[in-house]
């Protein structure tokens, strides 16, 4: 139960949200309580209803007051207009009547009849009770529509129109008097007077009952009455006759509503118990006053206000009713529910959650009931869970006990193991200090520990034997080292002897080498000289070869010259023969020319003959003579030409003869030249032969020289070879000397090493001596090792 209590309370708090409702604008006193909230809301509603009712009342009252004022002034306006119309009509009527001629010049009876007829025939406006014909001078009524007035002295009666006769500006003027009473009639009278036109001292008087007039006008609305006042504020018509002539109260009222009123204007005056509408007449200085009862006028307004108050009260009653019943029962239900929820929050899940309500509260109760059953289930679950947890805890405790027992065992084992470990550790430490004879006790609770012990013992056994072996080995090494040292010293001495011998050999070889180098230089010179000779011989050989070649060329040129000359000789002979043939031809041409000359001669003769003939023939033969002349001319020309040719042939013949002679001499000279050239050729051939012989000799010299040079070079090469061999010998002797030195040094190193080795062996031996080894168990192996070494 207690497990679920906290979250349950929390949940209820969440559901109700009570502590978190702090951001409300309402004061906490109101905000904390639903009743206060509801009361505030209802109070607000009531205030709104009252305020709104007051506003409506004020508005309605104002509207109604305006209506009353408008109605009242409208009424007074209407009544004033009616009265005005009546008065105007009456005055016009008086005027009209006064103009009637009968009143100016008619007899007494005629006037009387007329007046009676006016009333009887209702020719006058309403409420005109009598019409008089008056003598204005003494105020006597001379005639009247009412017989009672005839002969009555109006002055005596106190009628104002007689006691205070008005002045008329003309016959159309009228006068309205103030009210007065006469004994003959029982009501106040207002007289309207107009003078009779055309009859001085006579006037027509209308006597009117203004009271009746006013009453007939005012009888238009119940609860109101009408009065009329004149310009001085005195009543001239009032329902209460005693008031007539008295001054109206309103005339002295503040602001003088009566005096400030212009013609046709209206005003509204509100008294304590009366409302008055005032309207001034247009045509006369009278004011109509409509009096209305205040209570009666405002009855509607009062009724409306009363009803409004009633309505407001009913609304307030209903609001209170709602608040008390619905609000009250809601609050009660909420309180019950919240007390039950609190009881449930306190852990009492058996509270009663029944309700007869079927509204939201019923649902809420149902929801709480469901919640409760769910809670019960959850609590049951929680308890089951707790029991499970407790059993789990018990199991855990059992397990812990077991674990602790195991841990104790483990601790025992662990301490035993620690003991064994320290034991092992001691043994191993003594082993490390050199005592290899110690062994551990392998008896242990732990098989693994026992195994470790056995292993340690085995290891120590192995170590002991190994150390013993090493000690023997060190002894052996020491012996060997000593021997090596002795031997090495011996070898060192031998090496030094070798080194000295080699140095001597080196010196000899060096000297030999120097001498060979001198020989070689001389042989070089010799060889160079031989080569120089050979080169000179070759040069000579080349020169002789060139000479032989030139000789050969010369012989060939000579032979060519001979051939040329032979050819020229042949050509010359040919030319000579041709020239001879030419000469023959020229001879023949000469013959032909001679023939031609003969012919010309004959022609010329013929022409001469012809001319002679022509001369003979005389005149008729002139033409013939001309031809003959012509032929003669031609014959002469031809003759000249033939002679020319002849001359030329002669000249050519002579020239050809010269040429032939020249040719013959040339041929001779050529023949001589050929002989000379042939001699030259012979000389050249001889020279060539000599030259070739010289060349052969030189070649032989050259060969000999070359051979000599080769021989010198061979010698040189041999010397070079000897020199290099001796140098090599010296170098090798040097190398051998170095090697001998190296050997000597190496042997010293060996000696040092052997010494060092022995020192180390001594160290080892001293180290190994620290180990205590069981001598008895190791003698055999030591002996074997020693013998094995030897």
């Amino acid at each position, binding site marked *: 139960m207690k497990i679920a209590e906290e979250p349950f309370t929390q949940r209820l708090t969440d559901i109700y949200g009570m502590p978190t409702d702090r951001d409300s604008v309402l004061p906490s006193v109101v905000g904390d309580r639903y009743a206060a909230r509801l009361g505030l809301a209802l109070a607000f509603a009531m205030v709104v209803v009252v305020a709104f009712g007051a506003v409506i009342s004020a508005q309605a009252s104002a509207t109604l007051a305006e209506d009353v004022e408008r109605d009242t002034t409208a009424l007074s306006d209407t009544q004033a207009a009616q009265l005005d119309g009546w008065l105007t009509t009456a005055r016009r009527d008086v005027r009209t009547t006064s103009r009637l001629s009968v009143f100016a010049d008619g007899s007494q009876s005629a006037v009387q009849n007329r007046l009676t007829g006016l009333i009887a025939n209702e020719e006058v406006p309403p409420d005109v009770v009598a019409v008089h014909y008056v003598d204005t001078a003494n105020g006597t009524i001379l005639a009247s529509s009412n017989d009672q007035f005839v002969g009555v002295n109006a002055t005596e009666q106190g009628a104002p129109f007689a006691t205070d006769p008005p002045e008329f500006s003309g016959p159309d003027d009228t006068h309205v008097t103030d009210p007065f009473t006469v004994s003959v009639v029982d009501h106040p009278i207002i007289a309207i007077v107009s003078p009779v036109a055309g009859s001085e001292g006579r006037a027509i008087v209308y006597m009117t009952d203004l009271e009746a007039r006013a009453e007939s006008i005012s009888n238009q609305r119940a609860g109101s009455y009408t009065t009329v006042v004149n310009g001085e504020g005195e009543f001239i018509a009032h329902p209460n006759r005693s008031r007539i002539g008295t001054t109206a109260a309103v005339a002295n009222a503040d602001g003088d509503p009566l005096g400030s009123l212009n013609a046709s204007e209206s005003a509204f005056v509100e008294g304590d118990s009366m409302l008055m509408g005032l309207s001034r007449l247009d045509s006369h200085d009278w004011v109509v006053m409509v009096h209305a009862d205040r209570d009666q006028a405002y009855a509607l307004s*009062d*009724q409306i*206000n*009363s*009803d409004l*108050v*009633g309505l407001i*009260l*009913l609304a*307030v*009653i209903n609001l*209170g*009713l709602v*608040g*008390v*019943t619905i609000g*009250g*029962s809601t609050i*009660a239900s909420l*309180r*019950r529910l919240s*007390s039950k929820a609190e009881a449930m929050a306190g852990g009492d899940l058996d509270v*009663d959650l*029944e*309700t*007869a309500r079927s509204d939201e509260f019923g649902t809420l109760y149902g929801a709480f009931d469901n919640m409760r059953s769910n809670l019960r289930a959850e609590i049951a679950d929680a308890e089951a869970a707790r029991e499970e947890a407790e059993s789990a805890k018990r199991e855990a405790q059992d397990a812990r006990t077991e674990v602790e027992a195991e841990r104790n065992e483990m601790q025992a084992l662990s301490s035993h193991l620690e003991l064994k470990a320290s034991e092992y550790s001691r043994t191993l430490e003594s082993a490390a200090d050199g005592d290899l004879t110690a062994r551990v006790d392998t008896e242990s609770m732990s098989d693994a520990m026992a195994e470790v012990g056995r292993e340690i013992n085995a290891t120590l056994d192995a170590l002991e034997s190994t150390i013993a072996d090493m000690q023997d080995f060190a002894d052996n090494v020491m012996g060997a080292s000593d021997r090596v040292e002795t031997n090495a010293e011996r070898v060192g001495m031998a090496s030094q002897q070798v080194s000295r011998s080699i140095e001597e050999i080196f010196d000899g070889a060096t000297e030999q080498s120097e001498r060979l180098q001198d020989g070689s230089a001389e042989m070089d010179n010799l060889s160079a000289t031989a080569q120089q000779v050979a080169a000179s011989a070759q040069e000579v050989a080349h020169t002789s070869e060139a000479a032989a070649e030139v000789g050969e060329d010369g012989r060939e040129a000579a032979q060519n010259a001979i051939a040329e000359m032979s050819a020229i000789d042949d050509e010359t002979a040919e030319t000579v023969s041709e020239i001879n043939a030419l000469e023959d031809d020229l001879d023949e041409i000469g013959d032909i020319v001679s023939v031609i000359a003969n012919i010309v001669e004959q022609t010329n003769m013929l022409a001469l003959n012809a001319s002679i003939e022509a001369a003979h023939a005389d005149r008729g033969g002139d033409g013939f003579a001309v031809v003959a002349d012509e032929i003669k001319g031609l014959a002469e020309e031809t003759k000249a030409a033939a002679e020319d040719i002849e001359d030329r042939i002669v000249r050519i013949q002579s020239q050809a003869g010269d040429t032939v002679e020249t040719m013959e001499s040339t041929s001779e000279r050529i023949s001589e030249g050929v002989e000379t050239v042939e001699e030259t050729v012979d000389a050249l051939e001889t020279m060539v032969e000599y030259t070739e012989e010289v060349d052969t000799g030189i070649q032989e010299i050259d060969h000999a020289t070359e051979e000599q040079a080769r021989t010198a070079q061979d010698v040189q090469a041999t010397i070079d070879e000897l020199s290099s061999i001796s140098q090599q010998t010296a170098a090798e002797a040097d190398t051998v000397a170095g090697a001998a030195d190296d050997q000597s040094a190496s042997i010293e190193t060996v000696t040092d090493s052997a010494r060092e080795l022995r020192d180390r062996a001594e160290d080892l031996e001293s180290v190994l001596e620290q180990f205590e080894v069981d001598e008895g168990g190791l003698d055999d192996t030591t002996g074997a090792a020693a013998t094995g070494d030897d």
Partner: protein
Amino acid sequence: MTTITTWFTLGLLGELLGTALLAYGYSLVPEATRKRYLLLVSIPGIAVVAYLLLVLGVGAVDGGGHTVYVVRYVDWLLTTPINVLYLGLLAQADRETIVKLVGLQALTIGFGFGGAVASGALAYALFALGTAAFAGVVSLLYGEVADAAVVALSDVGASLYRTLRNFVVVLWSVYPVVWLLGAAGLGVMDVETASLVIVYLDVVTKVGFGVIALHAWLTMDSVTASDGIAVTAD
């Protein structure tokens, strides 16, 4: 006057209906509470008689310029003390307190009648006395009697007491307002309207009081036996 008679007739009908309803409830409430339940039935019952007389035009006197219905005051003089008596009994207040309660309530009505009949300053003085007496009633109902109810009653019973007490106090508070606004006081409300309001108030308070109690009894009876026993035991 026809209007006011109409209101009185409607009031008569309302009271008749309420009386009938409560009379029917008599058979439904637990046996043990029936005797006291009769008080609840008697309240509208008396009102029925009063309204009958009003409808018939009996019992109206002139109270200095306005009509005062004497019958109405007689009605109130009888019924309102019965109301508070019932509350006192319900709350199981001690006798002295109950007597004080009933006496103060009777005084309230008496001063109210005096104020209605009188005029001028005297009327207001009597009205003030009546108001003071009613304040005493209210203080008792919220103080001693309420404490007694909390001590003596179960949750549901106390709740019923609170509801009935609030109902009475809130609705009765309207009566003096009506008195003030009506003809006897400021005269803002005419007699007819005031009568209408009072008729409605009368019907609601008299019948409503009984109906709430009846409903509570029926609910309690059906809800839990324990609550019912707790209430019926007294």
